[in-house]
Structure formats: structure tokens, C-alpha cells
């Protein structure tokens, strides 16, 4: 490969540089950008047309001029060095260690782009992960290999919820190697610090790999962070046989960085200025979750994103919802009522739960009771809305029971402590206890035999 250094930078705009008269440069190749003051930055080839290459500079173009810069193309794509020693370490967005630990001697270097998993090679995720959180385990069950995002809003405790999941997640009755890969994109120092301190406090740090790109770090570097985190996760899962939980926060910041590059390239914008390929780009990240036939390990993803203006139809949550297998949505109203975790269960969903629950996995009645809790909660909420307009007196006695039920569900089922780790039996029994106040003939979503076995009608 060529080791030529080019002095032929023609244009500089936004995070991009146009280099002329290049030879043998390929799409996606990594570039080294040397400034005359000795600084070295890195970039990636986004486009080549004839002898001109468009290079995206990860650290940004601040301080670069046409005559103080030399560009060298490295003949390879973006890579990360991995070895079992990366567990417990903290990296920056460019993949360099930023903690005090020793230098890592990589066992091998992996291209971070990764190839798509062959759908034929996928194993269907069906192992129940107990998070100890009733609103997730009981109603929106997470399984190994799933991608289940948390849709949050600014000011809500998504960080606390995510670290509670990371702390408590386990597969009941199994003692397999478990790791967390945490990727922070454009979040504040305080938020990142919360995770690191919390991981440290609970001992989770030893089995974690952390990538940090803070709000003050170059936005373009953010684009590489999830790819590096997932490449690391794939190494841990498929080569070291570990079950890996990947937490990506915050995907909205990632998408904004993508928009910045797209705008600099003067591409035709899609909705709200995001590029038309946002869906495909997000999919290449989210679809790296899963299980592969014949491999022991698995990758489960919990991406976190904040919905601008609490709006679910904003392009980032919207496209994410179309790719991921469900979503956990946090609600400001519940948060203001003091409910933790403020999970707004009605719009939540776990698409993979049906194969992960039931007899021999959680309990035979799980699917039915989950559907019934949902149906009754929705009815109770509708009754409550009606009562707001017409007063409680206008409700039928039955509607009043449902309204009462939905309030109790908020306070007793969804509400739980930050350190409270509920077993699945406990969660399901709690559900039955709440349903006990409803007459049996109204519980149509539950098979008669389970009603017989578990339902105990209780009166006030």
C-alpha cells in the first residue's frame, strides 16, 4: 500500500476535507491527518470521485488550513484491538484507553464495521432475562439477544434505570459469564461519571468495557463509538462465550452527529434535516444484537435515547422503534407523581417476549396475565379520563373498580425501589393480587384453567 503523504487539501468545510490528486485510495479507508504543529488526527474516506477523496476528520477540523496539513491514507478501515484484558477498562471515542491501567496488548485487530449477520445463522432469542423490575419482567419481558431501547425525555431517570438493569440482570438458574459494554455518546461528564461510579460501587466494572465520548468531545468521533462498542461486544460474545449487555446512550446525540456530517456533504435532507439513510444507519447498529446458532454467547442491546420535546414521532425514536424489538417508554407524568421507574406501560412493548415466557421459562400463566393487566389498565385509564370530565359519580361501579385497579398498578406494581430486585414469581403474584379486586367474568384474556388456579377474588 501507498505511504504517500498528500499536501493537496483543496477544501475544508465543517468536519470534512477534500484532498486532490490521490491515488489508490479506497472507500472507507482510514486516514492520518498531520498538522504542522505536530498534532495528529484521524479521518475516514467518505467519498472518492476520480482522484479526489472526501475525508471526514474525527477530531474536527479546528486549526486546519490548506497549507499546514498533510494527509496519509493507511490502507485499512477503522479497527479496534481486542484481548481479554479489555474487561474493566475505559476507552475514549477513538478507542484509546483513558484510565490509569496498563497498555493493552491486542490479541487481534478487528474492523469495526462488521458484516451483516446472515438471518439463516440467527438463533431466535428465547431465554428470559430477569431484570428484577416488574414493569419489564412482567409486562415487557427482555430476552437474551434482544434489542430493547429506553425512550426517555430530558430530566427523567433513564440512567438510573439502565444501571439498575445492568446491575440486576440475570438468567435465573444459570451462572454463565456475563459482561457489560457501555458506550456513552455525547452525554455529560456527570452522567458518564454516574455510570462509572455505580459500576465501581457494585463491582460491575470488572466485567465491563466502557467507551466514553462526552458532550465536549468531537461529535464526529461519536459515529465510531457504537461500532467500536459492538465490535468489542461481538468479540466477548462469540469468541469468549460471554453474555453481553450493551448499553448505548444517547442515540439522539449519535443521530445528530450523523446529521451534521450529512449537512456538511450537502445531501438532500429527509425529515427534520436527518439524512434519508438514518434508518439504514441505525439498523446497522441495532441489528448487531442477537444470538448465533452454535455460539454460546449473546448480545443484548439497551439503547437509550431522549425524545426531543417528549415526542415519540420524532425521527430518532420513530426509526428506532421500527428497528428494535419493542421499546420501554418513560413518562414525565408518572415521574412527577413520584413513581420510580416511571415506565409508561401502555405504549411499551417487547416483541420477543412471547417465546421467552410461559411454562418452563417463567410460568404458564405469564402471557395471559400480562395481556390481562394491560387490558384492565387501559380500561381503567379510559375510565379515569371520563371521570376527569364528568366526575367519578358518572362512572359505573365496574368502571370505578377498573380505575382503582389502574391506580394501584401504578403505585404497587410499577413503583419499586432502586435497589429492589423482584423475582419473577413475586412479580406475577403481585399481578394476581391486583386482579383479585376485579370480578372473574371480566377477565377474558386469561384462560379459564389459570383463573381457576390463580385468581382469588377479594373484596374491599
Amino acid at each position, binding site marked *: 500500500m501507498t505511504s504517500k503523504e498528500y499536501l493537496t487539501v483543496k477544501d475544508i468545510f465543517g468536519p470534512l476535507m477534500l484532498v486532490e490528486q490521490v491515488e489508490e485510495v*479506497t472507500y472507507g479507508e482510514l486516514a492520518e491527518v498531520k498538522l504542522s504543529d505536530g498534532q495528529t488526527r484521524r479521518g475516514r474516506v467518505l467519498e472518492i470521485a476520480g482522484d479526489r477523496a472526501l475525508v471526514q476528520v474525527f477530531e474536527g477540523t479546528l486549526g486546519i488550513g490548506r497549507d499546514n496539513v498533510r494527509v496519509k491514507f493507511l490502507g485499512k478501515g477503522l479497527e479496534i484491538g481486542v484481548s481479554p484484558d479489555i474487561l474493566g477498562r475505559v476507552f475514549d471515542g477513538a478507542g484509546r484507553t483513558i484510565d490509569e491501567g496498563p497498555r493493552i496488548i491486542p490479541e487481534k485487530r478487528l474492523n469495526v464495521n462488521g458484516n451483516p*449477520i446472515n*438471518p*439463516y*445463522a*440467527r438463533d431466535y432469542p428465547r431465554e428470559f432475562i430477569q431484570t428484577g423490575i416488574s414493569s419489564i419482567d412482567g409486562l415487557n419481558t427482555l430476552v437474551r439477544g434482544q434489542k430493547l431501547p429506553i425512550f426517555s425525555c430530558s430530566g427523567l431517570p433513564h440512567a438510573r434505570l439502565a444501571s439498575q438493569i445492568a446491575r440486576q440482570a440475570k438468567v435465573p438458574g444459570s451462572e454463565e459469564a456475563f459482561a457489560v459494554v457501555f458506550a456513552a455518546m455525547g452525554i455529560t461528564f456527570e452522567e458518564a461519571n454516574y455510570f462509572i461510579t455505580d459500576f465501581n460501587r457494585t463491582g460491575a466494572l470488572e466485567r465491563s468495557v466502557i467507551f466514553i465520548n462526552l458532550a465536549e468531545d468531537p461529535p464526529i468521533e461519536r459515529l465510531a463509538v457504537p461500532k467500536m462498542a459492538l465490535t468489542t461486544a461481538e468479540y466477548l460474545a462469540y469468541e469468549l462465550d460471554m453474555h453481553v449487555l450493551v448499553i448505548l446512550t444517547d442515540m439522539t446525540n449519535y443521530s445528530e452527529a450523523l446529521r451534521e456530517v450529512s449537512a456538511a456533504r450537502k445531501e438532500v435532507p429527509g425529515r427534520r434535516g436527518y439524512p434519508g439513510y438514518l434508518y439504514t444507519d441505525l439498523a446497522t447498529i441495532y441489528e448487531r444484537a442477537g444470538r448465533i446458532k452454535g455460539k454460546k454467547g449473546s448480545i443484548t442491546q439497551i439503547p437509550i435515547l431522549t425524545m426531543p420535546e417528549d415526542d415519540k414521532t420524532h425521527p430518532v425514536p420513530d426509526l428506532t422503534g421500527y428497528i428494535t424489538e419493542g421499546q420501554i417508554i418513560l413518562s414525565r407524568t408518572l415521574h412527577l407523581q413520584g413513581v420510580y421507574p416511571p415506565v409508561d406501560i401502555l*405504549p411499551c412493548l417487547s416483541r420477543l417476549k412471547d417465546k421467552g415466557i410461559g411454562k418452563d421459562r417463567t410460568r404458564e400463566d405469564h402471557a395471559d396475565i400480562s395481556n390481562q393487566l394491560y387490558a384492565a389498565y387501559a380500561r381503567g385509564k379510559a375510565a379515569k379520563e371520563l371521570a376527569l370530565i*364528568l366526575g367519578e359519580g358518572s362512572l359505573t361501579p365496574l368502571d370505578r373498580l377498573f380505575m382503582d385497579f389502574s391506580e394501584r398498578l401504578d403505585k404497587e406494581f410499577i413503583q419499586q425501589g432502586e435497589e429492589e430486585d423482584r423475582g419473577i414469581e413475586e412479580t406475577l403474584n403481585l399481578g394476581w393480587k391486583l386482579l383479585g379486586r376485579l370480578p372473574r*367474568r371480566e377477565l377474558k384474556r386469561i384462560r379459564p384453567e389459570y383463573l381457576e388456579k390463580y385468581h382469588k377474588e377479594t373484596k374491599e
Partner: protein
Amino acid sequence: MVARGLAGTNIYDIVRVGRQRLLGEVVEIRTDNYSIQVYEETEGIGPGQPVYPTGEPLSVELGPGLIGSIFDGIQRPLDVINSQLGPYIARGAEYPPLSRTKLWHFLPRLKAGDKVVGGDILGVVKESALVEHKVMVPPGVEGTIKTIVEREATIENTIAEVETTVGIAGIKMLQKWPVRRPRGVTRKVQPKEPLVTGQRVIDTLFPMVKGGTSCVPGPFGSGKTVVQHQLAKWSNADIVLFVGCGERGNEMADVLLSFPELKDPRTGRPLMERTVLVANTSNMPVAAREASIFTGITIAEYYRDMGYSVALMADSTSRWAEAMREISGRLEEMPGEEGFPTYLGSRLASFYERAGAVICLGTELQEGNLSVIGSVSPPGGDLSEPVTQATLRVAKVFWSLDDRLASQRHFPAINWLTSYSLYQNIVDGFAREKIAPGWGENRKETLRILQKEAELEELVRLIGIEALSPEDKLLMEVAKIIREDFLHQNAYHEVDTYTSLENQYYMLNAILRFYSEAQEALQKGIDLSKIIEIPAKDDISRLRFVPEGDREAFRQVEQGIQQQIGALREGSKVDL
């Protein structure tokens, strides 16, 4: 990417690009500049690398061995790639879609001396326990059979020779067909049979026909994919093509792992034996996603030409449209609405128009049909966006998925107020003859009740339920029964997941029976609260769990309704 010096290459021809021989398609020619859309990730490709023309447009291979296979968007066999290259799809993989070595037992139907034209069935091959593959004379070939023998043959062996005006044509089981060109038919005809799906809200209220088109739009989480899967599982088509276009990998894995285990309700054989899968998940290359829909429908047309009833499910056409948008953007075409190319509408229409009931090519004039069911994923659930609107102009059935219903866990979340089917009359006519004379009236009455319920709900929101008349309250009660016990259907319950047309009719009949008896009782002055307390009302809610063929259960419930309401009337007489 642009290449030069490809003289002799036509637009939409396939080329191999670069040292890794990535697959690409010529999408634009400007003098000597050939724009190539590459179907794979292009990292590592740069100027100066070679381009190899193949001289052929993007084509699919057709022949025995399609059934039970899984292909990507450009018909590469994913199972072979997995066994050869491991769990990831490496770039530049080149494997033939159909096995070249597998032997098939070819059984002639015609004999030497017979005159044939394109589309005539030369003989058959048992492709799977469910599918008899009919080996056809390729379109355009016409003449007299010179030789034809019963034999074990690979798809590349010559199984017959036909003497034509231009010489002898050796006929193989393997055919190729360019995906962007519809396969010919003698003529199109009106569809006349329902596509039975076993889904009550669909078959009874918004039915689909064999050879029809329908679309399923809905925001994420409203259950599009579950509806598509249910149709792929239970619809009474002979062949099912499932195209996973830009959707989730785990969903394809679900189909792959569950279809070999699920049994076809009519034959008891695994569903995989009548299914072909095309999977181009969201993380696979965009250009191949654009091609996947064409690949799928061409294979579907091939089976239609054999005289089969074929159903194609495309999940999701929005991802397909987005792929077109991306490609159009790269070609720097002038964008139309929301950045979609201006030809979005005509492309979508030409895809849906490849559906239909037809008289196939060939002297026998046999009938075949191809139904298309496309899901649409409108951004933010907003149905005014271009893909939904362009689809609604061509699709005849509209199953509108509603996330409000989904969040109440009412599935399938098909909104009964906004959905429609333009095939209701065809299906009514069919059902009147084959199922029961009252089918159409029951459907109309049901829709009327649901419509009225929506109006009354508005009223209740203003003045409270107590202000309604007993008749209206009864109607609300009956509407609730229809919603909860008839329209709601649990895809994961072994019996509830599929209901035959007969059982759908009897279920609805029992509910409407209750309504008419109750109305009469109300007129006789009986208290509404007593009527809705009768135990037979609870029996209605268990009708969905009645297995196929058990007529007695329905009769008992209807009898129970009649007796118990009758008893109320008797009781009130005594009181007087």
C-alpha cells in the same frame, strides 16, 4: 460509482465490481460513464479497480428447489452462504441459488409428437410433500416435442427437446427470468374466491381474495409483522412467498425456526414445504433491498404460471421505498415529496399490478392467481405520507392498524372504523353459496353496531353512560362482546389463532342472536341488567376456543341464550 469502457453493456445489466467481485447493476448511462449501484458494502473499492460485465440483467433462477429455501434480495442462498462462509455474509459471495447437483425425478405429462407453446406443462417433479413442481415450456418456445423421457435429472440436464421453426430447443428444468419484467399471461380475470386467513376481523369484516392486493399500514408496535406472519401461516394459498424487506433479523429467524414446525391446517404438513423466503434485513445492503421485492414477486409469478394460488407478503414496502429514495438521492435525481423519487407512485403501482387472477400461458388455459399483501411503515404513524398514499391508490384492501388498540393489547389491532375492503361483494357471493346465506347481512349488522358504538361513545364522553337509553346501552354491551370475543384474537393460543369461515359465521351468529333476543326482551320491559347477567353471555366468550368441526358447541350456546332470555320473559310474566 461510475465506470468507463463498458461498451456493449445495457442499462440494468449486472456487473461484477472490483477485486472482490461485488455484485452491481448499471443504473445510468451517460455517454461512456456507467453509473453502477453496488449491492454490497463498498469499503475497500477505489478508482482504478476492474469492472466485469456479465451482459445480463438482474435475473432469478427458477426451477425445482425454490420451495423451502431462503434467499437474500438478489437470490443468493443464505443457507449455503452460512454453511460455506459462517454466520456473517461476507462480501462478493457467489453461489448459485439452486442446487446444481440435486437429482429430481422428472415425470412427463406429454409425449413426443405433442405440439406445445410457452407455458405448457411438460411434466412434473415432486418438489416437496406439498408442492408438485410443474416443468413448463419457457415462454416464447413453440413447436413439437421431439423427445421427452422420465428420468432422474439435475436442473441443468435436458429433459425434453422441442422442434421449433428455428431449430431444436433443449429444455431444462432451470429457467432464468429478469426480475424487473413481469412474466406473461394469456389474460387477467376477475378474482372470485376469498383468500381465507382464519383471522376473524379480516375474513368476516375486511376480506381479501385470491389474486387481490391489500396493504397493512401502521406505526411501530401496532402488529404489522404479526399480521403478516399470521397470513403467511394460515392463508389458504398453495404457495407462500415471504419477503422480509429491510426488517428485523430476529423476525426472519422466527419464521425460519417456526415454519418447519408449524403445520398447515389443511394438510398437516410443515408450512415450510410451501414457503419460499426472501430475507434482506435492514442491515443488509440497501440496493439488494430494492431488488428483493422484484426477486420475490418474480418467483411468485413463476408458481402462479403453474396454475397455483400464490400469496406474497412484503414486509415492509416502506423500507423498499426508502431504498429507492437512497438510490435516487445518490443519482442526484430531482426529489419529489419528502425526498422520495417522483416515480415512487408508478413503481409501487407496477408492483401491486403484478398481482391478480389470471389465465396462464399455455394451451390448457388453466387459472392461477397471485395475491400481494404489503405492509407499510409510515413515519410517526402518519398516514398522509407519500408511501401510504401511493399504496392506497392501488391496493384494494386497507387494514388500518391502530396503536391505541395495540396498547390495550387488542390484537390484531385492525381498526374497524377506518379499514375497508373492496372485495366484500365477491366474498359475500362466495360465502352465501358455500357457508351460509346470512353471511353478508351478519357482516353489515356487525359493522353497523360498531359504527353506532363509536357515535355513542362520543355521547358518553359528554353526558355519561347513565344518560343513554336501555336500547343504546344494550348496543354498547353487544359491541363490547363483538370487540372482545370476536374481533380480538390471540395469535399465540393454539385454537384461537385460526378460525374457519364456518366457525366465524357461527360465532357471529351467536352474538347477533343474543342481541336480537335481548332487544325483544327489552321491548317486553325486562331490565337490561338482568339480561346481561345471563350465564350464556359468558359462554359466548368461550366460543373462540371451540375446535374446528364442533358444531354442537355453537348450537348449545344459541340454545342457552334463547332459553335463559326466555326464562327472564316467563319470570316477568309471573311478576305481572
